[in-house]
């Protein structure tokens, strides 16, 4: 207090003090990094634009409105050669989402079954699961896709020698042909009844659970819901005077016409993605179950629960907390791996958009940027949904 340092000394001192403050330092370095990153991207983007202009390459997304002029084998929305490149983007995107969604559903089911099976007390079941998991995990996915595709194709008969069930379902090298529904007036009421039945069965399930909690009385939820979901739409169907008819596939010229078809490219890719990812999911499920303390199963057993009940009510709910985060990664992997579709000609986003469209237009940077943005968006969306689910399942401490 006695010494009065000059004001100049004082300011130098406080500057030094600020510099040695870890918070201030952290902030300064972060600002430097952010400026560096922005500068880097500014440099490569402006450089790319300069190079494109120098070389006389057209830029921009104007090509999205041009006529595409090429055919695509499978599309969920209406598409033919006269649609635009923008439309091919949508077609490819929907095909990617279709294969990813189907893959995620089937891989989850198969993965859970295999994961639980590997821990089974039954020697045979656990060994079968082990062999399956170790085989699938250790063979590159691309080889598996090729295997399934060419195995599928080689095993199937030509259109004229199709394997068939009656005159409705045909299987040949071009795909699995099935009757498709034709919607006539009044059909929307049947669809509405179907949706209502599904919502109804959810309500029943919730009510039954609450009742069981309160009174201990179980309720046959499964059979009642099944009956509701089948009978209600069926009843409406007849009441409305059969407004839905079927369009049967028929052999005309080279191929079957009419009905709907599952192409072998889709089947092979789906099988490969499902079996491959399921092996990883099985390991995640196994580790999740093993993470639940043994005391929990013993406690469940001492309550008189069967092994199935113990798994369903005690073990799996606790294991889910460990399972969900790595499971999310597998879902993301499956979505990204679906881009290998191009190897066998399944028309996904990479094949249709980053492949054909890119080559017809030559707009490499725009097309690749857009494709990357799509995968990023799908991944982030999956991630967010799974995080919400994870939060719901997380341990709530009371």
């Amino acid at each position, binding site marked *: 207090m006695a010494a009065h340092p000059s004001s100049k000394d004082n300011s130098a001192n406080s500057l030094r003090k600020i510099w040695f403050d870890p918070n201030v330092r952290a902030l300064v370095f972060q600002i430097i990094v952010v400026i560096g990153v922005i500068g880097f991207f500014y440099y*490569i*983007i402006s*450089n*790319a634009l*300069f*190079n*494109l202009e*120098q*070389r*006389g*390459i*057209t830029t921009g997304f104007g090509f999205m409105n041009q006529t595409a*002029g*090429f*055919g*695509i*084998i499978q599309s969920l929305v209406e598409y033919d*050669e006269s649609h635009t490149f923008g439309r091919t983007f949508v077609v490819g995107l929907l095909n990617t989402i279709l294969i990813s969604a189907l893959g995620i559903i089937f891989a989850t089911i198969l993965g859970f079954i295999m994961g639980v099976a590997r821990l089974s007390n039954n020697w045979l079941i656990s060994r079968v699961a082990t062999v399956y998991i170790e085989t699938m995990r250790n063979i590159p996915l*691309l080889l598996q896709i090729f295997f399934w595709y*060419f195995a599928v*194709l*080689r095993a199937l008969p*030509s259109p004229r020698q199709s394997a068939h069930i009656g005159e409705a379902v045909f299987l040949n*090298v*071009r795909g699995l042909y099935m009757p498709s529904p034709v919607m006539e007036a009044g059909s929307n009421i049947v669809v509405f009844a179907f949706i209502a039945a599904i919502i109804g069965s959810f309500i029943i399930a919730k009510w039954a659970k609450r009742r069981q909690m309160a009174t201990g009385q179980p309720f046959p939820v499964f059979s009642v819901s099944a009956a509701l979901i089948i009978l209600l739409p069926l009843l409406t169907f007849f009441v409305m005077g059969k407004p839905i008819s079927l369009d049967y596939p028929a052999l*005309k*010229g*080279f*191929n079957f*016409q009419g009905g709907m078809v599952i192409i*072998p*490219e889709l089947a092979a890719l789906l099988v490969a993605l499902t079996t491959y990812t399921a092996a990883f999911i099985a390991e995640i499920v196994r580790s999740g179950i093993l993470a639940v303390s043994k005391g929990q199963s013993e406690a469940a057993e001492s309550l008189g629960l069967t092994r199935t009940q113990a798994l369903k009510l005690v073990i799996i709910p606790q294991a889910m907390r460990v399972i969900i985060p790595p499971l999310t990664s597998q879902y993301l992997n499956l979505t990204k791996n679906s*881009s*290998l579709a*191009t*190897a*066998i*000609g399944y*028309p996904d986003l*990479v*094949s249709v958009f*980053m*492949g*054909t469209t*890119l*080559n*017809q*237009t*030559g707009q*490499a*940077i725009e097309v*690749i940027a857009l494709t990357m943005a799509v995968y990023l968006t799908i991944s982030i969306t999956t991630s967010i949904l799974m995080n919400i689910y994870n939060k719901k399942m997380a341990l709530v401490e009371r």
Partner: protein
Amino acid sequence: MLKNTHIKAAVAAVALAFAANASAAEGTLENVKTKGFLQCGVSTGLPGFSNPDADGNWQGLDVDVCRAVAAAVLGDASKVKYTPLTAKERFTALQSGEIDILSRNTTWTLTRDSSLGLNFAGVNYYDGQGFMVSKELGVSSAKELDGAAVCIQSGTTTELNLADYFREHGMKYTPVVFDTSDQTVKGFEAGRCDVLTSDQSQLYALRIKLAKPDSAMVLPEIISKEPLGPVVRQGDDQWLNIVKWSLFAMINAEEYGLNSANADDMLKSTNPNVRRILGLEGPKGKGLGLDDKWGYNIVKQVGSYGDSFDRNVGKGSPLGIARGVNALWKDGGFQYAPPIR
């Protein structure tokens, strides 16, 4: 390998972003001379046009264009490094500077010439799109193909012509699109499609790749014009001239009876046309920025256009394609090179 394909395409696009800011105009020629070799983009394997032989040496009509350019620029036809490219990767590879010249059965179209930053240097093969079917099918004309499943290689003009042809004739088709010509053939053999469509020259080349070549036949219809030729980057006129005139030198050489066997004897020739090709008189190599012996080197090391044609796709090759429209103009074909003078 396929995974690689996409990585390559992506890398090429990124390369465009990072490529040195200097304009393309300052010299591919200097660049090639400094490197000491020519980087040439070819197909992933198409017999007769660009295909590695049993020893891994690339051979074919398109490969000979690369060799001619290397002979003209570096004086040695063997100083070429080949980059196999799928149809989808080829333009990006050229745009980004990964290759110096693209010589890969590529069709010259307005879009490609005007909006992709590319320049076509000439036509080394006049082709047209055709159809190959299994003989079992009992089809004799493309007009009977309504409802057929068609195997195609993705990202080609073929894919567009096919759609046009079927629409014009009120027919339907199911496109089965593969990445490489090998996969296309496999799909065709497995019975996934009834028809394989491609440029006719390629159909003959792919047919000999089938397990049983006799089981398939090429239909008579040709549904499009496919002028195929070498491509370079836009904005480098000197380089465009070099590639253009390397091709013209080969065609002129055939016209004046030059070939690799008689090149040395012909140095004594008194025919002014021959003397100009061999760089003994006339404009020589100055305008192109090349050695005066550029023409001689091409003729001596690669041969004339006719030599190349016979050796790779014509009567001296397993393909046995007739000269047809690819004959010289004086023999009734389209091949016509401007004079070297």
